[in-house]
């Protein structure tokens, strides 16, 4: 109840924005293929619903697979990087290279190499999403206070124990910070991949709609993408709150005196 109340201003702002938008389109008589009114977007989206739902599920699949791949690959990678200076010196430049390549440019190459299926789209999604997760996880693992590390050593912890029992738990808030960014970027990555090569998905729907000047439907797809991003972000936040209450709470309160 309290949280609903806290979210009230945001909801009012969103509703207000739609009202102004609707009013402006009507008053100024803006043509639909330039800027459709919210009501037109709604009608178009509901009108094509089974189709829209199919595209939504296709995108959601790519997003989730890409996001899962980011998590599964980034966490061990981060632990590897944090555990050895030599490994970090070897891997980090490579990671930075993957980040400086524009993913839009990479997508067609991957599709030619791997075929027009789900795999290149998941890879593009992964490439867009994983980097911030690695960076923030490494930051968390290395930010572990030296006193805690020394406590571990005094308790005769080996390097693996130190990593798993001290550094990793300490890094959880950092990991979740990275997960939230990665969640949002996964949606971006999936749409980029769909623009380049797909026969389904919201990115594909936007492209084909615009080709036929069905602007309201394209807008509908954009709104659904935004909702998808918000929902995944909220899901990550919820998981953090349930599984790691000390992590989400520590954002507001003072840092632990360790």
């Amino acid at each position, binding site marked *: 109840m309290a949280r609903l109340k806290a979210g009230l201003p945001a909801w009012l702002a969103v509703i207000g924005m739609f009202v102004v938008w609707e009013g402006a389109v009507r008053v100024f008589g803006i043509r639909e293929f330039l800027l459709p009114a919210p009501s037109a977007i709604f009608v178009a989206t509901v009108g094509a619903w089974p189709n829209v739902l199919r595209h939504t599920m296709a995108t959601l699949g790519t997003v989730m697979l890409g996001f899962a791949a980011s998590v599964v690959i980034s966490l061990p990678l981060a632990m590897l990087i944090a555990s050895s200076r030599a490994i970090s010196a070897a891997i980090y430049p490579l990671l930075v290279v993957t980040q400086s390549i524009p993913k839009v440019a990479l997508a067609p190459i991957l599709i030619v190499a791997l075929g027009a299926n789900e795999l290149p789209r998941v890879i593009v999604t992964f490439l867009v999403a994983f980097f911030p997760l690695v960076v923030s996880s490494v930051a968390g693992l290395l930010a572990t206070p030296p006193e805690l590390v020394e406590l571990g050593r*005094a308790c005769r912890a080996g390097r693996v124990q130190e990593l798993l029992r001290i550094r990793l738990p300490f890094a959880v808030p950092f990991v979740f910070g990275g997960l939230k960014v990665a969640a949002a970027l996964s949606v971006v990555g999936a749409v980029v991949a769909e623009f380049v090569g797909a026969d389904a998905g919201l990115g594909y729907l936007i492209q084909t709609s615009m080709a036929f000047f069905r602007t309201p439907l394209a807008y509908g797809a954009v709104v659904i993408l935004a909702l998808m991003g918000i929902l995944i972000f909220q899901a990550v936040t919820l998981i953090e709150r349930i599984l790691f209450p000390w992590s989400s709470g520590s954002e507001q309160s003072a840092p632990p005196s360790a």
Partner: protein
Amino acid sequence: MIRLDGVGKTFRGRDGAEVEALRDVSLNVAEGEFVAIVGASGCGKSTLLRLVAGLVGVSAGGVSLDGQAVTAPRAETAMVFQAATLLPWADVLRNVTFPLRLMGRMERDTEDKARALLATAGLAGFEGRLPRELSGGMQQRVAICRALLQEPRLLLMDEPFGALDALTREEMSIELLRLWAARRMGVLFVTHSIPEAVLLADRVVVMSPRPGRIVDVVEVALPRPRSFDQEGSDEFQRCARRIRAHIFGERAARAA
């Protein structure tokens, strides 16, 4: 039990410059003895403790426990750091049992022992709290319980009350003496407070800086159990004056 023989420690700084933290330190701590270490900041007290804990190696001389050279952290010693250094993600009970879990020494009654220990430290009912929900003094008590639960034969304490206010400090000193009296382990206790050192210890080791070395060892012949009422006694004053003379006499000499 613990024996330091001509121990020296030299750190090499990042720029290659050498810092001699300790020179020719020799000291014995007997089974069940309470030894305090006082000295100006930077005279190597923490370094000495970390050498005994096996966290760093010596540059010269040797540290031995029961005649065995200390080269790595040992199960017989437990350390209380200056800050509480609790795990922010674990509740009080899991913090207290953390070392034993890490070392695979959990037994069926360990948790009950932990609860009992927390109760004696005035922390009954707080077992499920997170460290950030506790006051500084309570956190430090958790850290002390964590060390005691390991049932160490040698307890190393590096300014364990340094972060506490004067009132909590006095209360905690008395509490520590009570816990120590009940289980009689060797204690090496670093402090900046001369009265605290005299009140707690059988012997007070006075150190001087640059390089860190022992300048005097003061035997405290006050009867136990001790309390702050003894602060007015002649013996207390004699010990405190002697320690103070070493520390401030030197400072005055350096200033001249």
